[in-house]
């Protein structure tokens, strides 16, 4: 018999594999109003540390998926199931992304799009120091009005020295890629 109070649940991040990718799909389907392409999931499985499932004890209750986009990391999805919010799981996932960013010298910022009406998420990201840098009209094609804030947080590296990335080139590629992804959403 379980003693509800005696034990504290454990929070953890776990790998995304071909075996459990369906759980990731299920979570996204429930949390996000947009649906993602098969390719999105195929890439996610191959994304290593950039895609993680969030566990509460043995239950999968959330997931995060991001990718390197030029000199930035772009968060594609991050969320957890409604009954499990405000337990610190979101924080754990954001911290994971920020750690990835700090580990990679050429990464200067982490950014993402959020539906302007999703105040909870905006508040959530603001607690970590993300700021709205721009608002894109009609970003989500399937939603109306579908406007999105771009939230961004700069990354500071411990020994800020010669950042050797050739920014311009990457930035253009990044923009092109972001456009493509938007279609998938």
């Amino acid at each position, binding site marked *: *018999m*379980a003693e509800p*109070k005696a034990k504290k*649940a454990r929070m953890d991040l776990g790998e995304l594999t071909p*075996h459990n990718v369906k*759980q990731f799909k*299920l979570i996204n389907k429930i949390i996000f109003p947009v649906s993602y392409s098969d390719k999105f999931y195929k890439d996610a499985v191959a994304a290593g540390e950039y895609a993680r499932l969030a566990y509460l004890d043995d*239950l999968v209750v959330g997931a995060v998926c991001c990718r390197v986009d030029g000199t930035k990391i772009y968060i594609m999805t991050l969320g957890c199931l409604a009954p499990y919010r405000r337990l610190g799981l979101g924080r754990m996932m954001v911290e994971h992304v920020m750690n990835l960013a700090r580990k990679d010298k050429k990464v200067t910022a982490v950014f993402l799009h959020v539906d302007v009406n999703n105040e909870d998420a905006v508040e959530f990201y603001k607690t970590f120091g993300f700021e709205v840098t721009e608002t894109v009209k009609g970003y989500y094609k399937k939603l109306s009005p579908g406007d999105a804030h771009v939230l961004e947080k700069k990354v500071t590296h411990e020994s800020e020295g010669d950042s050797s990335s050739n920014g311009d080139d990457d930035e253009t590629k990044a923009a092109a890629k972001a456009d493509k992804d938007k279609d998938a959403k």
Partner: protein
Amino acid sequence: MSRTLPEGSKEASLFRKMLRSYESKQYKAGLKCAKSILERKPKHGETLAMQALITNAMDKHDEAMELCHEAVKADLGSGMCWHVRGILYRQKCDYDQALRSFLRAAQIEAENQTILRDLSHLQVQVRDYEGFRDTRRKFLELRGGVRASWLGYGVAQHMTGEISGAIETMTQYLGLQDDANTNAYETSEMHMYVVMLMMANNEHDRALTYLNDYEEKIVDRRSIEETRAQLLLNLNRHQDRLGQRDDALATIRRAIDHTPTVVELYMVEGRILKHLGRLDEAATQVDFARQLDTADRFINSKAAKYLLRAGRIEEGQTIAGLFARETRNTDPLNQLRDMQCSWYELECAKAYLAKGDLGNALAHLHAVKSFYKQLVDDQFDFHSYCLRKVNLRAYTRLLKYEDEAYFHKRYVQTAAYACSVYAELHNNPFGSAKEREEQERLAKMSESERKKYLSKQRKAAKKGAGKGANHHNARGKKGAQQDNKNKDKEQKGKKSKTPQWNPNELVQTSKALDDALVFLQPLLNFPAVEGMESLLEPAVDVLVRRKRPLLVIKALRTMTTTDVPRHVLIASTLKLMRFISTNADAINPTVREIIDEELPQLVENKSEQDLRKELEDLASKSLAAFACAQLLKRSEGVSTSDVIAAITDKAASLPATLDEAAAVWLSVANVQDMHAGKSELRAALQKRFPDAHVFTQHQLGATA
């Protein structure tokens, strides 16, 4: 205060001073007081007790104990003396003596809270929960305004297993307490404790409601959510067990909405749907669970099983194949246990039976049998292997296991299906009915219709044969040889070999009874092992036709000791009686003698007539018995269509569970006669159990 010193006396004031000195640890001063009292009142018990206590505090334990004995002797009626005695013994860890002393003290001073507290702590220390509870109750009666009194009593009730009482105590207290003045964390803890008590009491529904009602008061959200998810699962199991299946389904769906990533929830949902007869939905849900964790072999085989049960044979076979490679085990001891494949073959056989495809069903049944045979044949390898490895305990276990290999319930089931199929094929050889049917059908068709129909038939036949080829792994050498010839037919990536058993040939057997006997052979003693109930009736059918009355007697004897329904025993006995009366001359006199001796004992000396009456009576009360009695008539010459029409007539009215109805249906559906009104029976049963999927699986058209 000492009860034996008059109030206002010099001694009384000295006594008071002594107590104060003790409490403020001024032991010397305390002893001085004691001495003065004892000078005036020698052997004053309670003073001696205090003296003992003070001496003890000064670490002179032996002296203290002596003083204490003196004290008790001097004043046996003093609670204080006994209390001190208890304290000293407790310190020596002599809990038995300590407990006696405290009990005595508490008896004398029933309202002394210090004594009660010491007593209750010692009781819980020595796990005297009943005593603990009684003491805590007294405590609560004395000090109802104090929280610890309530909690103590609640916990004590919990420990003695009076969980309902504990819940009542806790909720009563929570109702009384003033939230504004209480620490939110503590209140939360108390509510969660109530939830836990309800769970321990199997009151999952109540716990869930409670959790919802008091959600706001519980500060630890994480434990709420976790508990809720568990709770839903428990509640659900409970409802499923109680047969409240619709409630169970609603509960499990709530749980899935709450946390849809929990694989087990879909498994539970699948099981409930299965119990409701909704096999197709059940398979879909369990297969969904499989997709959530494709690394889990257990779920994988469950999904295969559910798909096969739902008649989704191809899907089931593919899913089962996903893990097939990994089930091949090279360690012979493990391999023995690894009966993965036999469950699969048996499920396939069942699936084909449910569809009415007797040929493919037989092929899979033969496959199961071959596994068991292989197991026994492989003994030779194990003899040397185990002895060489000095694996003696494993070896002897193994020998025993081998001896009883065929007693495994899966093999018994296999033999049961084989007997019923072969008994039917003996009665109505495959093709006889089919040809008749085909001719009638073709006669009604126009020329073009006939052409189309025939080409379709040819294609279907080809496909059927191909399917069989893929799924009957030949483990033996013979299969491996044939393998080369048929390689082109093989699907890529499948390790399966050629058909060792050709469904078409199997079903067209001209020696159905012999074939059945091969399955029965290892079980002819009819040991009362698991699953035997299902074998006995079809075995009797085979043995009566095979004219083996003594073996029938054996089977009947086991029927009387296992869980076989009475109507089955009677119908089987009647079959034997009929055989005896129609073959009276052919039966060997010795055999006859044994039968005459044994048979009456099996049916309480009842005559054939009595038995028939009894069967009729049973048949008026249950659909299963009615169908059994009707099918008996079929073996006595009544036409199949009359029999089925009679069953159809009662299909709506006679009591039957879904499982019973499904069994009746299967026994009728595979009767080899197309024009017997089976579809009417199906419609009637389907109407009675509208959600059930079992009745629609059968492709009546495909039956011979």
